[in-house]
């Protein structure tokens, strides 16, 4: 499994971005967030149409604005196809108004590269990656299939990774001078 300090793989995948007819799909790639100088928060889950997932995805959605304010692209991902994603979003009330894309890793190539495929079923573990604007993985967590995540914890980690206290008032003797 890829870990902290490693480069997040390049990718270009289909994603569901809306349930509106004609606007359902979009290609998303690793360049999108890097070109904008943003962070990437990608969270994986095993399968569409299961029970723990919608709760967790809805919780991420509820906090979408928090990720936006932290300059982070939020992306949900599983190995289901974009058509299954779309059907699930249309089928489930909590998912109809999702504000972030659902990535379809149908070929499982990205999950494979990340090393988060469960051996038996070849579905993704509940892995969360925080990637900085340079494409470097700065945080990984992985839960077994049935264990949901705490979104607040992901935000806390993102806050901690992003620089704060840039004010020279905090300069202490012996420290390097401030470089931003």
């Amino acid at each position, binding site marked *: 499994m890829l870990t902290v300090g490693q480069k997040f793989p390049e990718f270009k995948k289909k994603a569901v971005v809306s349930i509106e007819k004609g606007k359902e799909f979009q290609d998303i790639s690793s360049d999108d967030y890097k070109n904008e100088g943003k962070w990437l928060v990608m969270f994986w889950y095993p399968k569409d149409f299961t029970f723990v997932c919608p709760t967790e995805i809805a919780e991420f959605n509820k906090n979408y*604005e*928090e990720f*936006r*304010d*932290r*300059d982070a692209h939020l992306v949900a991902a599983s190995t289901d196809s974009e058509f299954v994603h779309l059907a699930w979003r249309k089928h489930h009330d909590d998912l109809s108004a999702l504000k972030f894309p659902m990535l379809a890793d149908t070929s499982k190539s990205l999950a494979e590269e990340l090393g988060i495929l469960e051996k038996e079923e070849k579905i993704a573990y509940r892995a969360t990656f925080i990637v900085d604007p340079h494409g470097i993985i700065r945080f990984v967590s992985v839960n077994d299939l049935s264990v949901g995540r705490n979104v607040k914890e992901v935000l806390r980690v993102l*806050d901690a990774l992003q620089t704060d206290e840039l004010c020279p008032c905090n300069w202490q003797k012996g420290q390097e001078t401030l470089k931003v």
Partner: protein
Amino acid sequence: MALQETKIDLLKDLKIEEVPEFISLDAMSIGETRYLKDLRINLKNTLASENLSAKEAYLLALAVAVNEKNRILIGSFTELAKENGATEAEIAETHACSSMLAVNNVFYRFRHFAKSETYNNMPAGIKMNVMMNPVLGKEFFELLSLAVSAVNGCETCVGSHESSLRKLGTSESRIFDSIRLASVVRGLSIAIY
């Protein structure tokens, strides 16, 4: 565009109706400074301190808003404090605390600046009975007093309220979080007025 959304969300967080003109907030959102994001994150994070209950956090924010004479934020934090269980008596005492501290911060700062034993020995002649048996409880009243004093920059007051809180057993992280919140609300009052 994103900054416009952040502005709208910030007002929503604070239950403030959008009025035609927030001079600074509008300038920041029209000119798209990313500071608005910092401000909203800082406010949410400091209000959500593990070392303060929601009611305490909103009352503390209210004390600073009163100190800043910021009508919009006073309205907002009063409503939010009440939603989290604050009584009329506690709201009243929060206002009283800020007013009392406005007196003390000037008075004790003068003594501190003047550095003269004469003034230190002259009786203050200022009633401070509100500090006797506060409905907010001694410890929380002290915490409000410390935060307001930090905002107003009275060294003597900060020193004495901090040490009395430590004697009451207040943790340094609770004190620190209160000051973080007070600082952010002071910044907020310069964005929304």
